[in-house]
């Protein structure tokens, strides 16, 4: 193996897909719902982006339910599919750690909507119970 391509080699199915993405503060961000590849100069495929959200997941759910999830998600979506650049990943272990914060990544607009329109209006929502 003299001309081993650069980059780290892992089993994507076992070690990257469906893992929990955690931000720099330890907050849970999303799952690795799907991946986007890019062809490097040497012709090898590299992981370029983590794809996030129901549209990314739908394809992997597959079957009629997958089609169903995808068509609903696409109809409701107002923005392009959220992604996380693989360059911001700093560690792949039992979770996938990224260098940015949850708010900077901004991959889950529904969570923010629920937070701003429902949960924040309930008394005590800012109360840390730990």
């Amino acid at each position: 193996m003299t001309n081993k391509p650069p980059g780290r080699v892992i089993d994507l199915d076992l070690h990257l897909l469906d893992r929990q993405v955690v931000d720099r503060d330890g907050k849970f961000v999303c799952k690795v719902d799907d991946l986007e590849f890019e062809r490097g100069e040497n012709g090898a495929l590299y992981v370029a982006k983590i794809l996030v959200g129901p549209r990314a997941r739908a394809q992997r759910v597959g079957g009629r339910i997958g089609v169903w999830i995808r068509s609903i998600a696409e109809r409701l979506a107002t923005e392009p599919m959220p992604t996380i650049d693989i360059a911001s990943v700093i560690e792949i272990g039992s979770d996938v750690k990224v260098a940015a914060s949850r708010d900077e990544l901004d991959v889950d607009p529904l969570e923010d909507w629920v937070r701003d329109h429902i949960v924040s209006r309930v008394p005590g929502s800012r109360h840390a119970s730990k």
Partner: protein
Amino acid sequence: MKFLQIALGILTAIGGFVDIGDLVTNGLVGARYGMSLAWATVLGMIGIVLFAEMSGRVAAVTGRGTFDLVRERLGPRAGLANLIASFLVTALTFTAEIGGVALSLELATSVNYLLWVPLVGLLVWLVIWRVKFSLLENGAGLLGLALVVFGVALWKLHPDWGSLVHQAATAAKPPIENLPSYFYYAIALFGAAMTPYEVFFFSSGGVEEGWSKKDLMIERANVFIGFPLGALISLSIAACATIVLKPLGIQVDQLGQVGLPVAFALGKIGIAVALIGFIAATFGAALETGLSCGYSIAQYFGWQWGKFVKPREASRFHVSVLLTLLVAIGFVLTTTDPVKITEYSVVFSALALPLTYFPILVISNDPDYMGEKTNGRLMNGAATIFFIIITIASLAAIPLMIWTKAGQ
């Protein structure tokens, strides 16, 4: 300090072991089959010890809850099917627990249980929304220790211990009962002792409390000492019913009947303590099942979950718990008998068990996740044998339910 922590963990594990499923099923089976089905409770206890130990250890080493791992191992499609099945069973158990709290309050106050349901729902939500996780877990568990009164009652009843042990050891089915119903109730007891939510809650609770490898001692003490002692409470409930209710030919179909032997043996004080135990055990389990519904959805989708962050930082988690709670309250208010809901929920629990047990068994063997903390040889042998037992119980559950018309 460490010793206190371990002792507290064991006590809450004992008090938290029994829920509405154990109360109803053990009372019902004791009154009908005597101690002849004690083996099913013991089997369920060993199963929950193995299952909880594996998932607790995985949570401590990797910081991942049960459904994180279910999705990682099964992928989004099979994981989704698994989530739906496990969620429905847990939500049904949640409904049964809320009904159980309301029934216990009716026993204590003579106010119809349906009037208690909205108040119970509100209290469950307030506690989940506001109360510290450790207080929530320990408070309900410690109050649940009041159920030890069943052990005291059993001792005061001066039973023929030899006969009880003989019934349990020979698994002697009463001759008037048919075999399919006998096995149907064996599965019910197995499901009551080994309810899936207990594992979701135990592993996610480990993450809530920030367990690491250093806390494995606490985790193991909880499981290996606390759970078997908790199962002793289950067995004493069945034994009390065997001694007092079975000779009278009482068929248990109300929660109050489960407490009768305590009243018989210990009078007013006994029944007061038993009622505190009923309320604490069902309320504690309502909190655990409610949280578990939220944990499993949030872990599948990767949302922030848990009480270790502010509610607004885990918004969909809290909304999921709240919506499930509203549906559960609505279901109880349809006046469907909570005791019947409980009887079905324990059998469906047995049905759903392999779905989450299998991924945990695989991952607890995976050195990629676990480093040197994978299953030992003995653990793995026992856990694999139990996977076969769980699968058989799961496959037999529905055919037996149909065959026996749910145990008639």
